[in-house]
């Protein structure tokens, strides 16, 4: 994995600090060309991985990269699925079952199973997982997707419910069908590591908040530190600046004092910010 992955929150109006800022960013990136421009700047600064939600608009970015293979010869996507709000809003409108039906590809046995009110066994969750993965992966057809992530809302929801077998189904399917490494995003990293181990997902790629002030590191700062020291997994750090609460230099120098950090995912909207972050990462990771 590359040391730096480019995230997409800034493109889609996600900002954990301010709704105003989120909206300003949504306006700035209203035109997909602005998104592509920033991604191109990042690429030219040496960041070739886009870790992105399977948001409808990412399909347009994917299409652009597909059409310009010469401009982005080694470009790769780390899809993070699904875009959960689309399911949550649908669940309010149509209920949980209605939402599942709405997004499952048409004409499959899944819909039929619901219609018949069948209560089914083992194959079911595995089948649902496969169908939903396929439907989210469509937009990346023909592109490099060496790691495929399951989004934190889904991971943590399944983790809480105890549906940990789903992690295994997801991991196996992503490997078999897409030749990709499975990744998991979570706000509860220590607990997730235990559960992944218990279903035999070995040396997993796990992306979680890791920052100096412990923002959204559930299970506690010390438990995270211990996990980084003692557990076998590949850590991807997100929210390293704690949504802007930490100065960049301090945040990144701290990150590289932690063991086992394989990558940092970050978002930026300007070339100068991208370059600055890249320089800090090169500087502190060299000292690591």
């Amino acid at each position, binding site marked *: 994995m590359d040391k730096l992955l480019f995230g997409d929150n800034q493109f889609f109006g996600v900002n954990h600090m301010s709704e105003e800022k989120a909206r300003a960013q*949504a306006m700035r990136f209203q035109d997909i060309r602005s998104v592509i421009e920033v991604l191109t700047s990042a690429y030219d600064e040496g960041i070739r991985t886009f870790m992105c939600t399977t948001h409808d608009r990412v399909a347009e970015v994917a299409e652009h990269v597909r059409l310009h293979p010469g401009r982005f010869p080694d470009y790769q996507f780390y899809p993070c699925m699904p875009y959960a*709000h689309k399911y949550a*809003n649908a669940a309010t*409108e149509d209920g949980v079952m209605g939402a599942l039906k709405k997004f499952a590809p048409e004409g499959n046995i899944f819909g039929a199973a619901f219609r018949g009110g069948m209560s089914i*066994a083992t194959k079911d969750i595995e089948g649902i997982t496969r169908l939903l993965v396929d439907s989210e992966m469509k937009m990346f057809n023909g592109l490099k997707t060496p790691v495929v992530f399951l989004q934190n*809302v889904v991971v943590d929801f399944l983790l*809480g419910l*105890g549906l940990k077998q789903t992690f295994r189904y997801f991991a196996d399917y992503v490997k078999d069908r897409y030749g990709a490494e499975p990744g998991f995003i979570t706000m509860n990293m220590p607990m997730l590591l235990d559960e992944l181990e218990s279903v035999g997902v070995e040396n997993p790629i796990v992306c979680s908040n890791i920052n100096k002030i412990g923002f959204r590191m559930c299970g*506690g700062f010390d438990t995270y530190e211990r996990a980084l020291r003692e557990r076998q997994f590949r850590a991807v750090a997100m929210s390293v600046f704690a949504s802007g609460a930490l100065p960049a230099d301090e945040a990144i120098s701290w990150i590289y004092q932690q063991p086992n950090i394989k990558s940092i995912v970050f978002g930026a909207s300007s070339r100068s910010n991208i370059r600055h972050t890249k320089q800090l990462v090169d500087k502190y990771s060299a000292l690591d």
Partner: protein
Amino acid sequence: MVRLAVIGLGKMGLSHVSMIRVHPNVNLVAVCDTSGFLLDILSKYTGMKTYSDFEEMLRTESLDAVLIATPSRFHESMVRLALDRGIHVFCEKPFSLDAKTSAELAALAESKSLIGQVGYHYRFVAAFQEMKRLLDLGAIGKVTHVLAEAYGPVVLRPSGSSWRSQAKEGGGCLYDYAAHPVNLLNWFFGEPMAVSGTVLNSIFSKDTDDEAYSTLRFAEGISAHLSVNWSDESYRKMSVKITATGTQGRIYADRQEIQVYLRNTAETLPSYNSGWTVNHTTELTQPVWFYVRGEEYSAQLDYFVRSIETRELNNVNSFTSAAQTDKVLSLMRDDANGLSSSMPALSPAKPARRFFFRR
């Protein structure tokens, strides 16, 4: 350990199960729903004990508490059954669809010294908690006006097949969305003395409202405008925001931040300057044991569990406080339907005189 069961496995119920199952002080004894499919999945993959009959579950299991997340019209009977058996209750909002019923249930819980809590999770959002603290301290002097808003992209086309699209089942933007800002207004300023100018309008829904507007008047001359729309695609997800204006400043809060303008500094507020002070969720929010979709959802459940352990009946989201919100919602509905107006109905053919008569 608190022995707890969850009833109703829709969007809210499932999310509650995912948080409460891993709470260190809770033993999730069983879940109950009418969907065989969900029950089978949970039972098959997690070994969770499942019921399709609520009363059977209450008879069979020995429970300290239940968490009720069924469609709103079932709340009343389920809450009553649980309280009658001496079980603490966490119930999703809106509490009941009838303000009188809500008050009765509140009295019943109180008479039995049982914890009753309703899922108004915005009272657990750190920025709104800070707003409450500042208002209670009189930070912005005498409050004159409040703007309470909620927007989001729920119903964006004519469709919808769940109970949430049926007004009489407690669906619609009024009960689903407006309930939240109204509940915050109740928390900050108590019960309004009058509700007027209510508009409940459908945009896309056939059987219910998609937007709600109203004017609420509270004691001491405080007025509030409520502006709510759940058919607004320009919002990525639900956004609740409250702006309070007073003689000594202004406070704006949403889930991410609180922006405060104070005309003067106050000794009781050492961390606030005169002029602007902005605090973000990153600094204000307390850590939780488990995170799924926002600290406030976890925090309210933890608070419920701790209230049971300590037998603390003075609950921030008590049945009584939720009954207050239910009352405002029903006043709004009556007002919109012209039921509470003391003025005689006017002929629509004489618009000029209507204006005259309303004066």
